[in-house]
């Protein structure tokens, strides 16, 4: 086992311990409002106001395109970037 592998194993073990402890320390899956220190203030605001503010019945879409529309622009840009990158990589090198 080389030195690099040894470092890698240690790194991996540390990450593993942290992640599993983190998983155990998280609030329980499927929490109930008001319990376990769980309070979905932001999401409740969206659920209660999305229809009146944006007119979309699909709350997720209203988040994607209205409340967090700027993220969606970024996301579309990421795809645009990837297309440009792939075409750039596979371009012809000679004119």
């Amino acid at each position, binding site marked *: 086992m080389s030195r690099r592998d040894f470092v890698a194993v240690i*790194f991996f073990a540390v990450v593993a311990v942290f992640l599993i402890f983190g998983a155990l320390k998280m609030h*329980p899956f499927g929490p109930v409002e008001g319990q376990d220190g*769980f309070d979905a203030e932001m999401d409740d605001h969206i659920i209660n106001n999305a229809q009146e503010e944006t007119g979309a019945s699909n*709350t997720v879409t209203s*988040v994607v395109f209205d409340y*967090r529309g700027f993220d969606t622009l970024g996301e579309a840009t990421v795809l645009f970037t*990837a297309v440009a990158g792939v075409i750039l990589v596979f371009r012809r090198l000679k004119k």
Partner: protein
Amino acid sequence: MIYNIPFIAVAALILIGLYTVIFKRNLIKIVIGITLIESGVNLFLITLGFRKDSVAPIFTSNPDVSQTMSLPVPQALTLTSIVIGVAVLALMLSFIVYIYRHYKTLDVRKVVGGDDE
């Protein structure tokens, strides 16, 4: 404890991915590892959005609209993250195609180690 099983699954998925990235030498396997980590993170995001006895946050012809709804923001975030993952995957695979064309190998030691000029 039993309520944390989805989070443990997330941890397991991320760890498998990380293991693949760190210890495997094949470029394609490294990419698979990254997508595994990404699925782990996406799964984590989507599990955060669930609350007990909730339905999808969509006001369609659902008879009982007053039911608890799951959180919409994590779903939107997951959507964004999935698209970003696709973009990264496409770019990584095209790099691999080029690397294979140039070095005629997929072994990471021969590609990154060799400093040709």
